[in-house]
């Protein structure tokens, strides 16, 4: 049974019904006993009342009494000789002289209760049909006890009302949340809530807050991305218009070359934006988590950057000190290494060197990319991981997203990044992966 309210109502209702029944039964028993005692007492009193009477008649005269005043008791009196001197009424079956005191006699017409007392040389016996006494008793009890039933019903009604009232704050919350649209992440009011529900609502509000912050970051990203796309698109538009105006073959060739460069740049930016978006925890892209051979990723990454390196006359070197596996997503690790190497090639002057090393440092696997460039000044080291931050004036132009992506992927793999001075003279970009049982 899923509904709390119905469960409460049924349980409480059942409790009330059971208690009512038990109460009724107990009271019934007690009432019956008390009624019996009362009737016994009556019989004794009648018998005692008659002890001094003299009877002229031997039986009760009929017709004298009112129709409504029925005389249920039968009175019999015997004298000391055992002769019946009085009988109040003739019955077909009547108990004979019974023992002194209270007794019950079974006759063909049912049970009789008998009380006999010996006094003044006579035996006075008062008898009553059990059935009559029983009927009287039942009537007495029912009249006394019937209010229990309406009381029980009212109680059940009251419980229904109380439970419904108690559930109202929950209904309020569920309808308030149900009426919201997808973007509404304001906290739910905790006013008037029972303290048992407050922790639930409080955690819900905390979840809303986290979601709202994550959505805010995502919206910010979308806005930033749209903004960043403007410059590449402007360049494309201008480059096409320049192509349209080109007057001769050389001008056309140059304009086309520039246009191709502009398109490459736009493509690169979009690719990086997508890669960055995929790193977002809200993006729901599945990440692999399997053993990845670092050297394979490094070689793939370097292949991606080789044409850029050769166009600048930069030597791209690779050194593998150990066969190393790390746990993670192979595609992402390739992107991580590629972006670092791409960055190194971009910011290293022509005819320089960029070296990629895969090694083991204590228990950790490391990838180190060193270059012969001019390194990074201390105050810039934090900024280079900001989205869209670029060292100004370099050509071909980066997207500004390479290193933020590296940072995001490193975080996913619980890897740390260290920036040091390289023996080659420039920057040594080190990524340290957590140790893994080989």
């Amino acid at each position: 049974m899923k509904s709390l309210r119905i469960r409460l109502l049924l349980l409480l209702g059942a409790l009330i019904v059971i208690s009512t029944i038990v109460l009724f039964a107990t009271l019934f028993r007690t009432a019956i006993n008390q009624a019996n005692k009362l009737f016994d007492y009556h019989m004794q009193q009648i018998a005692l009342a008659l002890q001094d009477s003299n009877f002229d008649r031997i039986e009760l005269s009929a017709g004298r009494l009112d129709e409504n005043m029925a005389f249920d008791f039968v009175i019999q009196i015997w004298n000391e000789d055992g002769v019946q001197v009085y009988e109040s009424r003739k019955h077909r079956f009547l108990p004979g002289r019974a023992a002194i005191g209270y007794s019950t006699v079974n006759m063909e017409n049912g049970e009789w209760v008998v009380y006999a007392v010996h006094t003044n040389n006579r035996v006075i016996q008062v008898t009553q049909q059990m059935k009559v006494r029983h009927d009287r008793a039942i009537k007495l009890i029912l009249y006394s006890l019937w209010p229990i039933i309406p009381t029980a019903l009212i109680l059940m009604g009251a419980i229904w009302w109380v439970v419904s009232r108690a559930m109202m704050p929950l209904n309020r919350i569920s309808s308030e949340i149900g009426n919201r649209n997808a973007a509404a992440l304001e906290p739910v009011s905790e006013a008037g809530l029972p303290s048992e529900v407050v922790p639930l609502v409080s955690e819900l509000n905390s979840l809303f807050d986290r979601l709202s912050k994550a959505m805010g970051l995502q919206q910010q990203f979308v806005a930033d991305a749209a903004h960043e796309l403007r410059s590449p698109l402007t360049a494309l538009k201008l480059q096409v218009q320049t192509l349209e105006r080109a007057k001769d073959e050389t001008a056309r060739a140059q304009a086309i070359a520039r246009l191709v460069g502009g398109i490459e740049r736009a493509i690169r930016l979009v690719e990086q934006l997508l890669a960055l978006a995929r790193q977002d925890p809200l993006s729901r892209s599945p990440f692999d988590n399997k053993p990845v051979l670092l050297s394979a990723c490094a070689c793939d990454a370097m292949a991606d950057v080789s044409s850029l390196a050769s166009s600048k006359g930069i030597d791209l070197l690779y050194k593998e000190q150990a066969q190393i596996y790390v746990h993670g997503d192979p595609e992402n690790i390739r992107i991580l290494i590629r972006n670092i190497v791409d960055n190194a090639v971009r910011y290293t002057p022509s005819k320089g060197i960029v070296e990629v090393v895969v090694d083991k440092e204590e228990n950790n696997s490391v990838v180190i990319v060193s270059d012969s460039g001019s390194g990074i000044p201390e105050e810039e080291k934090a900024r280079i991981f900001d989205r869209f931050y670029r060292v100004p004036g370099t050509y071909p132009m980066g997207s500004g997203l390479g290193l933020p992506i590296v940072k995001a992927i490193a975080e996913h793999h619980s890897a740390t990044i260290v920036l040091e001075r390289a023996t080659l003279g420039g920057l040594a970009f080190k990524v340290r992966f957590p140790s893994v049982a080989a």
Partner: protein
Amino acid sequence: MKILLVEDDLMIAESIQEALSEEGFLIDRVCNGAEADIALMGQRYDAMLLDLGLPKKDGMEVLRGLRARRDSTPVLVITARDTVPERVAGLNGGADDYLVKPFDLYELVARLRAVVRRARGHLESVYRHNDITLNSVTREALIDGKPVVLSSREWAVLDALIARPGAICSRPQLEQHLYGWSSDVESNAVEVYIHGLRKKLGHDFIMNVRGVGYMVAKSV
């Protein structure tokens, strides 16, 4: 016309410089706000194309500094900042026009000319004097309705003179209109071009004020 182009995106700057050069503009190019300040304080430009998102010093700061120095160089802002509050801030901050990226090349040129025209107080781009008609937009020179061909360097000098008719342009000022930073100035280039112009348009057209400079009469 001599224009200062302040734009940090190299591809955009390249395209603009090339297109405007073809249109007859002479372009000096810088890629950050600090260099823009230095260039502006070094010489007078006919106009500035100013990107706002610049390294070292933001474009709005450059603009504010310019106007604070009471420099009335016409400024056409080109930027990706497109919201209304940003546009209002740009115009209120002293920009003469505000163009949002991505923009059309032809629109850029037209707005640039409009901004310069307004700054010069000219009604139109055509200069008339006696039987001479000069249109610096179309690069048409007519004497008595008959076209005359002028080289772009000649146009550069002529444009500087008809920009402020009745005012004297000194030789250094004319040299600035002929040369950007990357070129070497020939020592008597200005005289050579003035001589060429007088030959084609008439000797009395350009007046020589000894020791000061050259000028043309007001447009009729």
